[in-house]
């Protein structure tokens, strides 16, 4: 049994009175915060007025005729070969999600011809059916009303014929006069786009093609040019590595191909009774990243120390170089410990760094080369085509543009005015150029200055071939006709190059040529080829070391780390409200970026009471003499002393309604060092302003608490909520960390409610779920998948601030240990479908009750909104519709007025007819005034049962998958029938020593079993009991 204290926020750690008051409350705000009589709020007269109005409206409504509905048949044009569609049945199309850094083979679920959900393609050897939050949310971007509906000339509506004619004529003029044309792109992993670019360059030979990534890995390629002889990024077999050492590498959250890597990583992180082994993960890091939060050992280091740390490590594992002690004792000890383990696991370990610095990458290569990790773990036989941007080319281009060297600028999906340090240069150059074209799908920061915008189609409307690694191809096929008058950017390029082959035909021919088979079969599968699993040559250690420049870095002031968040990424997804509202896995903040400060800084500045009321202090941060005013301050446990961290990807100005003016744009503060974009800066100062900021922060409410008054439980600090142990203890005892379970079962065999008999589930189905805390990395794909599947509304920044977000599934993040360097645990928390559900007993109208299949049912139309159930839910998973978020109210749009996502009371994105096309037609939208919560995806259960019934066979285990389970790339969530003793869930419940139920001693008989988190640590870490960290 764990005796650790888990905390979620600084307030809780300090046990401030504010926190105590708030933890006991159901809802974290005053319901009528402005609604007092003095403020002109409701009084008796208003009440009577409102009542009179309601009565008359009700009378009027009842006198009205029932509206006439139309039934439009699904009509097929018999002159065309159109596939038969049965209305009401979903059709799945294999396709590919790709955004420059992330790649996923997916299935697109369409209903009546409109895409409504993304599922993983389980056939894929590359991503094995996993999806990410971005991939899940991407379907909403298709219906984004901020997309440009037609090509434009000088921001005025035009048509393709005119635009093409004008562009081609200008291109011809420029090319004939020998004028230079810049074609600026992001990473091009599409063989089709590559082909189109080649054709374009052939037609206009004065073209220079520059690819860059907003968040670049160019240094890795540059270092590998020296170490491996070619500018590649090798794939890494995290599943085969016994020791993983990360240096500021967020390979689970935001790094290159993070989806694939997360799956690989997690597959070797779940020990079982028969095979009690897992990899060990060390992380040296400046700020807490997703990968870092999953590490067994963490060592905070400043960014400037990373190079020295690697030099020390290289020296310790037997390479050349001179060690110099680092500033932190932990880090120094860490290097020694890591070196020992690496040496013991030669050829079975890997050192990675996410820092975009050539020296650092060279050192990493040297260490891996010395350890013989190439081939088996670092696979140079399959290298990434992702993140192939060239920082040097971008810097050169910027210089040339400044000098006015280019007459034509074509931005192929690139947005350099927003996401490069050269914003002004690009802005001026675009405005001055003879020809400026952008293929952005909206008039973004760069496109708005272009003469022509030729809007790109969404990937769900396009044909494409994407190759993420050598030898592997994902096919993109359209799942809907173009919603707007848009054209795929590759097709635009081909048109301007004089090739008018329709893009569909072209891609089909390419697929046929590639696979040597009928393109239809290939497209149906969605991918082609098998990436090499291992192989390739090792690194040239001597050359790598020789190329490392002499160290002469002296830093001053605060060092700032610019990082990427898992939701909005580099800013390309800023206008996707699902991703804006996805809490950051670590900070749990939505709809914002902010400055992360270390705990030591908070102590020093006396930032004691912060997030309970979510009014955080703000600070002015000065970097390179430029001041960013009023940045919200978030205390980040585990962040290295003397560092600050601010996320990139925010502060968009022309992204659309959801993404505009959310947070601050930090790209201007990144800088090019020796031709490589650096995402760390030193010499920064931070000054608290004394102002406060209302931050849309999760996790400081919906707090799970255990009853410390129960006889067997003294103060155990959530010991029955999160359970964890170490691998060593688990090897000795499969019940390690879970020892109290037998006792709980014994002592608390009686229900809380006398005479309340648990339901009899001896026959039929009894649904249950298991969540493996070891497999869960906290990425949040399940949260978005749940929202998309179940029409869970996005509520906007203001409502999240008021703790009124609607997520049915949240991922609780707990810290324990030393606040300067704590351990982190993630716990997905959703309705536990208790058999002794406390919520059911208190509902006065029986709107929530139990089904014979063990589901805690919620009948929305019976709910009268007393919220007693939410008040009584020990897991705090019930959500109340305070407002009409989806236009589901019978009387129509109640929330008129200003509806920005960020500052208004509510938002109306789901009121748009176009956006509503994303709604799942099998799940009802909830109106104002009712409670909702996780239903175990009852629509999927019913669908699975119906399929079995129609085929006249029993339901198979694993046939019904919940949305969260299907989305999870690590397989942390399993759903099944407890009554089927052969089901995975029943087996875990009955035989897995790691299985426990949250708050089991209260005898809620929940249906969601969690498996104890196991950390691969040598010893139980020093226990850290503090009531008041007077420190």
């Amino acid at each position, binding site marked *: 049994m764990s005796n650790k204290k888990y905390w979620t926020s600084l307030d809780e750690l300090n046990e401030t009175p504010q926190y105590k008051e708030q933890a006991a409350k159901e809802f974290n705000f005053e319901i009528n915060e402005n609604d007092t009589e003095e403020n002109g709020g409701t009084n008796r007269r208003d009440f009577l007025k409102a009542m009179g109005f309601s009565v008359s409206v009700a009378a009027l409504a009842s006198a009205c005729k029932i509206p006439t509905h139309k039934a439009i048949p699904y009509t097929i044009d018999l002159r065309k070969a159109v596939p038969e569609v*049965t209305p009401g049945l979903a059709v799945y199309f294999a396709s590919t999600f790709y955004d420059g850094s992330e790649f996923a083979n997916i299935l697109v679920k369409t209903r009546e011809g409109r895409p409504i959900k993304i599922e993983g393609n389980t056939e894929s050897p590359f991503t094995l059916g996993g999806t990410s939050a971005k991939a899940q949310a991407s379907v909403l971007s298709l219906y984004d009303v901020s997309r440009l509906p037609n090509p434009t000339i000088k921001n005025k509506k035009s048509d393709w014929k005119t635009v093409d004619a004008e562009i081609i004529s200008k291109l011809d003029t420029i090319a004939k006069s020998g004028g230079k044309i810049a074609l600026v792109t992001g990473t091009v992993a599409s063989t089709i786009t590559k082909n189109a670019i080649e054709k374009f360059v052939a037609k206009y030979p004065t073209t220079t093609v520059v690819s860059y990534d907003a968040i670049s890995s160019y240094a890795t390629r540059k270092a590998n040019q020296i170490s491996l002889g070619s500018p590649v990024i090798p794939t890494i077999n995290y599943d085969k590595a016994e020791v993983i050492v990360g240096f500021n590498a967020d390979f689970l959250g935001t790094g290159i191909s993070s989806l694939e890597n997360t799956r690989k990583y997690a597959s070797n992180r779940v020990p079982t009774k028969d095979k009690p082994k897992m990899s060990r993960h060390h992380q040296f890091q400046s700020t807490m990243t997703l990968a870092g939060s999953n590490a067994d050992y963490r060592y905070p280091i400043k960014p400037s120390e990373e190079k020295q740390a690697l030099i020390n490590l290289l020296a310790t594992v037997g390479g050349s170089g001179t060690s110099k002690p680092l500033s932190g004792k932990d880090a120094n000890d860490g290097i020694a410990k890591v070196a020992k383990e690496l040496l013991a696991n030669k050829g079975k370990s890997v050192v990675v760094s996410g820092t975009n610095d050539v020296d650092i990458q060279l050192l990493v290569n040297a260490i891996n080369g010395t350890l013989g990790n190439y081939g088996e773990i670092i696979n140079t036989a399959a290298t990434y085509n992702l993140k192939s941007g060239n920082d040097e080319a971008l810097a050169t281009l910027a210089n040339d543009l400044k000098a006015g060297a280019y007459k034509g600028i074509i931005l192929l999906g690139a947005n350099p005015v927003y996401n490069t340090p050269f914003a002004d240069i690009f802005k001026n150059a675009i405005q001055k150029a003879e020809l400026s074209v952008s293929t952005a799908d909206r008039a973004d920061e760069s496109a708005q200055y272009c003469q022509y915008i030729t809007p790109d189609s969404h990937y769900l409307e396009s044909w494409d071939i994407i190759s993420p690694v050598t030898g592997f191809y994902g096919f993109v096929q359209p799942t809907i006709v173009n919603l707007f008058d848009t054209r795929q950017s590759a097709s635009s390029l081909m048109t301007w190059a004089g090739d008018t082959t329709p893009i569909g035909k072209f891609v089909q021919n390419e697929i046929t040529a590639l696979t040597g088979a009928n393109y239809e079969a290939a497209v149906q599968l969605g991918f082609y080829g098998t990436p090499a699993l291992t192989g390739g040559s090792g690194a040239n250690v001597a050359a790598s070391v020789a190329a490392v420049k002499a160290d002469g870095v002296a830093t001053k002031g605060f060092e700032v780390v610019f990082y990427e968040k898992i939701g909005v990424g580099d800013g390309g997804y800023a206008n996707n409200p699902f991703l804006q509202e996805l809490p950051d896995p670590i900070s749990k903040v939505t709809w914002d970026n902010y400055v992360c400060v270390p705990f030591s800084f908070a102590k020093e500045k006396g930032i004691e009471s912060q997030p309970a009321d979510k009014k955080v202090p703000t600070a002015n941060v000065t970097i390179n003499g430029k001041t960013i005013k009023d940045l919200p301050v978030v205390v980040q446990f585990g962040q290295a002393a003397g560092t600050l961290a601010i996320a990139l990807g925010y502060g968009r100005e022309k992204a659309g309604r959801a993404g505009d003016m959310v947070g601050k744009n930090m790209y201007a503060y990144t800088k090019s060092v020796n031709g490589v974009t650096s995402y760390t800066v030193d010499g920064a100062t931070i000054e608290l302003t004394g102002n406060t900021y209302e931050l849309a922060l999760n996790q400081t409410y919906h707090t799970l608490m255990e009853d410390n008054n129960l006889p067997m439980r003294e103060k155990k600090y959530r010991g029955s909520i999160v359970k964890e142990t170490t691998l060593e203890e688990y090897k000795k005892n499969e019940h390690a960390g879970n020892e109290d379970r037998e006792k709980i079962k014994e002592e608390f065999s009686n229900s809380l409610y006398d005479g309340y008999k648990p339901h009899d589930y001896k026959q039929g189905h009894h649904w249950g779920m298991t969540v493996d805390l070891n497999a869960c990395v906290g990425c949040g794909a399940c949260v978005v998948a749940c929202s998309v599947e179940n029409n869970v509304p996005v509520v906007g920044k203001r409502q999240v601030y008021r703790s009124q977000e609607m997520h049915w599934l949240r991922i609780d993040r707990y810290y324990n240990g030393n606040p300067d360097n704590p351990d982190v645990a993630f716990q997905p928390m959703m309705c536990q479908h208790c058999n002794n559900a406390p919520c059911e007993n208190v509902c006065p109208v029986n709107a929530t*009750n139990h089904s*014979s299949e063990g589901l805690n049912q919620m009948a929305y139309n019976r709910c009268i909104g007393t919220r007693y159930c939410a008040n009584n839910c020990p897991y705090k998973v019930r959500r109340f519709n305070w407002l009409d978020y989806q236009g589901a109210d019978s009387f129509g749009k109640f929330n008129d007025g200003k509806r920005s996502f960020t500052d208004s009371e509510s938002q109306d994105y789901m009121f748009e007819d176009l956006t509503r096309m994303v709604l799942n037609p099998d799940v009802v939208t909830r109106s104002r005034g009712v409670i909702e919560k996780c*239903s175990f995806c009852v629509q999927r259960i019913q669908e699975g049962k119906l399929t079995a019934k129609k085929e006249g066979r029993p339901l198979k285990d694993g046939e019904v998958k919940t949305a969260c389970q299907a989305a999870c790339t690590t397989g942390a969530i399993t759903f099944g029938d407890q009554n089927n003793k052969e089901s995975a869930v029943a087996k875990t419940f009955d035989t897995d020593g790691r299985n426990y139920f949250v708050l089991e001693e209260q005898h809620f008989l929940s249906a969601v079993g969690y498996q104890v988190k196991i950390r691969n640590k040598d010893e139980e870490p020093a226990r850290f009991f503090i009531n008041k960290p007077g420190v």
Partner: protein
Amino acid sequence: MYSCKPIRKILALIVIILSLSLSKTSFAAVAVPDVAATDAAGVEKVKAGMALYKANCTACHAIDRKVVGPALAGVWDRWESEAKLVAWVQNSSKLIASGDAYANKVFNENNKSVMTAFPQLSAEQVMDILLYIKNPGVAEPAKTAAATDGATATGTGDTKGTSNWYIWALITFLAVLALLLWSVTSKLDKAVREKAGETVEDVTLDKKIFNKKTFKVLMLIGSILLVFNIFNGAIDLGRSQGYAPDQPIKFSHALHVGQNQIECQYCHTGVEKSKHASIPGTQICMNCHKYVQQGPKYGKEEIAKIYNYAGWDPDKAKFVEAPKNIEWVKIHNLPDHVYFNHSQHVKVGGIKCQTCHGKVEEYEVMKQFAPLSMGWCINCHRQTEVKFAENKYYSVFQKYQEELKKGTKAKVTVEDIGGTECQKCHY
């Protein structure tokens, strides 16, 4: 005295008429007799003929007008012998190939479209069909009766309403009359008494009736009635049993399902696969209506509407433009918070369409048969037996399976397996 002369004359006349009529019959190419409604055996044959006619002929033929094939009335006069007519029906191509003059004439007159061969029809059956074609009225009485029944049924509904109205009017009239009479008698009484010298208190009618007590009672009754009505009215809000709106095309289920015996699934293709039975698009209408260009009731008018929606040019006999949506008025409106799946009920449950939609085969205009209220759903779920033995899915209910085997349980209803729980229909 009467002589027998006139009788003879009459007899002679009869003989002549008879012989004339007989001789007329003998001149006809194919002999098809008239059948009297009283001739039971004949009517049976006509009915058999009707069934065969409807099953085999109506796709291309009508009795009184040309459809795809020629009108069939008088066909017996057009063929020279029964054998040839039967041979034509059984295999027209063969007869044409044999060089028969009339067969070739018919073939050429009908744009050389080959009539489907019916080798399965015997000569006797062909004659039965002809019998029906000649005497269609004889087989109709049953149908006419049914139609009249239907009319009466709906009529009674109306009459019931009307008679109720009359009764109420009558009661009111009588009540007013009673009051008037009472008032008259009391006034007369008063006059008589006053004449007799009595002093009579002046009690007016209104005072007698509208005193405080009656007022209270009336108010009470009134409030109860009001609440009752509001309650019922509220329950009925959004319900529309019997709803039969005008549709953009006067489509008749009675014709298509009742008369032409087209299976429901032919048009409502989703009913066994999907939650929606689905209303057919013009692509399904056009399967038949490429050929059937005229309806029995509205002629070409309504079918022309289909052509317009389908983008079909009947003259060129091809689709000339993209189909347009037919905006049918939706009749069965379930609230958004109800999930209903047709395939669950039709494919798994084996429920007949008519159980919920009524005798659609008799509806000239489609209407909502069931109330579609939750009580109606639940009642059915309580009573309906699950196909436990046939479907292996239900093996998961081991306890019920055992009880059924032992005989301790007679049947398993939908309710028994959780069919009345909230989240079976609401999610």
